[in-house]
């Protein structure tokens, strides 16, 4: 269950890959929607930690267009519900994530992203 909250925090860390290494691009993915407990304080506290554009773009690629392109200054319940759904309820179970820069492929198996690099790929 790679949720978009996790995807928003993962970057390529291969040797010498330091620019344009985020966000990773999902490929050949299987999605599952699973309900999660709504917590508006948590969401509000988390908003400043998100890379907003990466989140919105990724959500749109996965077919969810509910989030505005700019993070709103005033948050209402409708917005928080959308954010909750995108961040915490969309799960990527299988597939992979590709680095936009070096094209390294990180597979996702049973909902767990494999971010391990081989010895020679570590910076």
């Amino acid at each position: 269950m790679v949720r978009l909250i996790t995807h928003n925090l993962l970057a390529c860390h291969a040797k010498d890959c330091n620019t344009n290494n985020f966000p990773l691009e999902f490929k050949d993915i299987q999605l599952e929607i699973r309900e999660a407990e709504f917590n508006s304080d948590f969401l509000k506290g988390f908003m400043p930690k998100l890379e907003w554009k990466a989140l919105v773009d990724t959500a749109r690629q996965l077919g969810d267009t509910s989030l505005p392109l700019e993070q709103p200054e005033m948050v209402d319940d409708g917005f928080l519900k959308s954010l909750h759904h995108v961040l915490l309820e969309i799960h990527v179970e299988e597939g992979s994530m590709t680095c936009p820069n070096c094209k390294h492929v990180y597979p996702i198996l049973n909902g767990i992203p494999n971010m391990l690099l081989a010895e020679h790929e570590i910076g």
Partner: protein
Amino acid sequence: MLPTPDLSHLTKKDLEEVYEPAEDTFLLLDALEVDYDYLKGSKPSICLEIGSGSGCVTSFLGNIIGSTAYFCTDINPHACRCTQRTGKQNNVNIQVIHGSLASPLELRLASKVDVLLFNPPYVPTSDDEVGHAQSDGKIEGAWAGGSGGMQITNVMLSKVKNLLSPSGRFYLVALKENNVPGIIKLMREMYTLTGEIVLQRHAGREHLFILRFSHL
């Protein structure tokens, strides 16, 4: 006393492949319980455990803090699966990442981690043994710590300052042989982090410590 997380879903086979919670694990749980009021009161928004093994520690933390974001990494794929299941079993929503230390998260989690936990492979071994243990992703990686038992811990220590939020805390398990005063001195002099011993205990042949670090 808070209950230890429910681990009844872990089979004998799981525990052949994944580190079974032991005295070091329980001392870390006890240290988190000592800091219960702080941990609960400070409303952490990001908690990260390195080398979560069975998932026992983060599940315990989850039962102290309640709903927030929990991330765990481990180099052992079986440990990753066990952590995920243990989270479910104890109603803690854990995001598990199969990876080494905090590497894939370092860029985005800079200055954002409120609670950072590491019960590392701390047993002194040969350097060869660490190399194999780290690349095999098997249970040997749970203890093989190289010279002074510090080979993996030292790499992590160099990352802590960058990861911790301004009020963040780092909890580390260490063994007497790891040179506890030396770790505290290094953290202060190299990384301007202040550290202290929260708990210590003799368990069989091991003299175990829990250290806690924060920004000066």
